[in-house]
């Protein structure tokens, strides 16, 4: 199916899911994703700690790319979804709404949080034979955030948002 018909509750749905998603994103970045027992010393993984470690090792380019793909762009995308839902609902600031929609379609190709989650599983399989590993709160929060994001991108197409933009400001 190429285009989906816009339903009247789509903006409410988008707003509700985006707000839930951003809460799970905050949770995912506030706690630990994985805990690992290495010879009686505990190590933990968190997106921000991973980025700091990369910068410590002076891998600035990799650090910047990873920060963009798994932190800045997912956070920005979900914030833009919340903003566009509010703007279209209140029918205010058409020029900002237009720029936000263009930005959403430009950013959609750069979000790689789902690939990062698969990478965590791959890394775990590599380490599982040697160390004792367990998932923590942030892993499940990250998983829920990704599922909510997939729901948004598969149910609310950019085409539908442009249709709603036309309807909101051209009436």
């Amino acid at each position, binding site marked *: 199916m190429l285009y989906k018909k816009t339903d009247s509750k789509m903006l409410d749905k988008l707003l509700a899911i985006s707000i839930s998603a951003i809460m799970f994103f905050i949770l995912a970045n506030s706690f630990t994703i994985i805990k690992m027992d290495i010879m009686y010393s505990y190590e933990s993984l968190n997106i921000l700690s991973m980025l700091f*470690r990369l910068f410590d090792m002076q*891998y600035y380019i*990799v650090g910047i*790319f*990873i920060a963009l793909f798994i932190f800045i762009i997912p956070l920005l995308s979900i914030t833009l979804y919340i903003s566009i839902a509010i703007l279209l609902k209140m029918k205010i600031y058409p020029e900002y709404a237009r720029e936000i929609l*263009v930005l959403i379609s430009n950013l959609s190709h750069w979000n790689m949080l789902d690939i990062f989650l698969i990478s965590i599983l791959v890394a775990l399989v590599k380490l599982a034979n040697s160390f004792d590993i367990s998932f923590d709160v942030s892993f499940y929060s990250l998983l829920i955030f990704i599922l909510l994001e997939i729901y948004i991108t598969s149910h609310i197409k950019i085409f539908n948002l*442009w249709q709603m933009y036309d309807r909101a400001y051209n009436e």
Partner: protein
Amino acid sequence: MSSKLIRCPKCEAVNIDTGDEIECRRCHKKIYKNKQYSLNLTTAYLTTAIIAFIPANIYPMLIVTQFGVSQESNIIEGIIHIYENGSYGIALIILFASVFVPIIKFILLIYLIISTKLNSHKDHHSKHRIFYITEIIGPWSMIDVFVVAILASLVHIDNIEIIAGSASTAFAIMVFFTLLSALSFDTRTMD
């Protein structure tokens, strides 16, 4: 009187083709009609990606230091090591994401660029399908870079340390430029 129509690549709105400088009626972005500009941009990004792919495969991706002894491994050595350890599935995933995906993407993009340059309008449905495949598979090459970053972040105690190798930088640059190359390709040139 019939006028030509043009699709905006940003918002998909249909506009009336009024000449060289067209501004989209909906998103107000410029609609570029210069086919050569998009092709040159795609070719430049793709060339950069291919150049970065060479050091990404030659230099070490991962450096493991155990009790003072360092062991370096590039992408292929890493895959062989995982395979020898019995993790066949993981070896297959990394082989696919780090070796096959970039090569497939290079080949598909080169095909699209050449066929567009030669003005071949045959079978544009399959060309759109090829472009869609390159867009979908592209970001999956980042798996290896993410895995290295995760391992380097997790394993750093006194006697055992995992460090990201210089190939990870080249690989991240390669993925970034292949994505840019696909995004800069104007799909209207295939029609």
